């Protein structure tokens, strides 16, 4: 049997990286990700992993080193947050375009400026078009489970794309929770071995990585990436089923929490989903038909599954922990509103931007959202399409 331990989110990520035992980890510290790299460095120093640890001088170099390693046939990992992700931006696109299955925990933090070290999703949401798969985690257990599955998803032959597994900065990264850890051997067996068929170091079969790709083939290579993303949904589901067999915990593209017969539905990603669950339970006891749809995979976005889950709701509120300046709402809202366009019956949908720069969101705020949904369901009128939760006027 595995064991049950108390770990913070960052410690959980480091622990699962110990079990994965990547060939190469190239990373640079940044709050609130620092403890992942710090703890993992100790594993390297103590010799409990055989990883080649590259202490790079920036995140741009961290991702570059991971690309070199992965192209050479190594299983490579890194971790970052906010401005660190911003600095590796250019290279993130290259990792995805070269189809390198790099896995990266991303500790969600607000992007500067003004400078802020606390949680929001502006970093990962900004990278949503980079070609990376994105899995959002609600708690420490999900970080553990998502990172193990991420290795399998990334390296699947149908996929071959990098994966970022997000966790909310401080709220999860620095909060200690109960985590069930699998036996090392079980993890090793589950993830298997990474084999790059076109290793950069294979002198018997030399290939060119990263050649110039102009108007004659670039478009075709982008189409291949689109195809890989389209196939990823099924792979996430398949890996989720296989993971259940070794862990007892099941994972889908999203989590439907008390959605059956739910009239009023909140959609959320990350740690806030846990708070919403508590509110749903309270409201259900009071006879209110409340439910939650928790986003796990944001890239690829499971549009069909989401619209199926929401089409019978009487009112839906989408919580976004990031802003898309000048857009019609937050990134999750835009996806879902677009997905619901295909439904014959119009479902009223509103958007709430919340929690920017780590602004706390509690039970009272979420209850207020459900009360507003109740009003919308009764009156069939949306007074405000995009609202701001917990903002002082």
């Amino acid at each position: 049997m595995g064991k049950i331990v108390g770990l913070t989110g960052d410690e959980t990520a480091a622990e699962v990286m110990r079990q994965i035992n990547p060939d190469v980890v190239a990373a640079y510290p940044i709050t609130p990700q620092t403890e992942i790299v710090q703890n993992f460095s100790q594993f390297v120093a103590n010799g409990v992993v055989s990883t080649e640890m590259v202490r790079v001088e920036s995140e741009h170099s961290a991702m570059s080193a991971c690309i070199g390693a992965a192209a050479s046939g190594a299983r490579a990992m890194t971790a970052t947050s906010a401005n660190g992700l911003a600095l590796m931006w250019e290279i993130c696109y290259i990792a995805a375009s070269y189809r390198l299955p790099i896995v990266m925990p991303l500790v969600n933090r607000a992007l500067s400026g003004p400078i802020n070290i606390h949680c929001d999703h502006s970093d990962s949401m900004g990278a949503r078009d980079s070609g990376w798969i994105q899995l959002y985690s609600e708690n420490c257990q999900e970080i553990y489970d998502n990172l193990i599955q991420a290795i399998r998803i990334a390296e699947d032959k149908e996929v071959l794309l990098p994966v970022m597994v997000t966790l909310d900065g401080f709220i999860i990264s620095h909060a200690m929770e109960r985590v069930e850890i699998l036996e090392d051997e079980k993890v090793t067996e589950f993830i298997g071995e990474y084999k790059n068929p076109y290793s950069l170091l294979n002198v018997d079969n030399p290939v060119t990585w990263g050649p110039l790709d102009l108007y004659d083939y670039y478009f075709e290579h982008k189409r291949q990436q689109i195809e890989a993303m389209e196939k990823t949904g099924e792979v996430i589901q398949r890996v989720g089923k296989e993971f259940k067999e070794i862990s007892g915990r099941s994972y889908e593209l999203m989590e439907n929490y008390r959605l059956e017969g739910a009239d009023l539905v909140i959609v959320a990603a990350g740690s806030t989903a846990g708070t919403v669950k508590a509110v749903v339970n309270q409201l259900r006891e009071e006879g209110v038909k409340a439910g939650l749809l928790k986003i796990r995979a944001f890239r690829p976005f499971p549009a069909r599954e989401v619209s199926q889950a929401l089409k019978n709701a009487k009112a839906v509120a989408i919580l976004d922990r990031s802003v898309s300046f000048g857009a019609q709402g937050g990134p999750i809202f835009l996806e879902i509103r677009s997905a619901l366009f295909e439904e014959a019956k119009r479902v009223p949908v509103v958007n709430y931007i919340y929690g920017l720069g780590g602004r706390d969101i509690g039970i009272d705020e979420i209850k207020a959202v459900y009360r507003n949904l109740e009003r919308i369901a009764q009156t069939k009128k949306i007074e405000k399409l995009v609202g701001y939760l917990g903002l002082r006027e």
Partner: protein
Amino acid sequence: MKEKGWKEIPLGGLILEAGNAEKYATGGWRTYRPVRDEKKCNDCLLCWVYCPDSSIIVEEAKIKGFDYEHCKGCGICSAQCPKDAIEMVEETKFVLQEKGE
């Protein structure tokens, strides 16, 4: 060369065949064409040493000419030639000649 569709090409922009740069004719980039004066040339082969595109054709230590399929017309051969035996001539001249103008 017929260009392939997205299902037919390797993933990630990889090129699986070594030494394939030869298949890419870069001669069309040329604005000035190197032309050798055989009387001045003493086959010292400095142009062959300096050419960045391996476009000086040499047989048995004698210069036979230029590979105009790949020569980009950079002019390094002309600049390095100690005998001033290589002249860079505008491509338009040859185009007009071919048209008989």
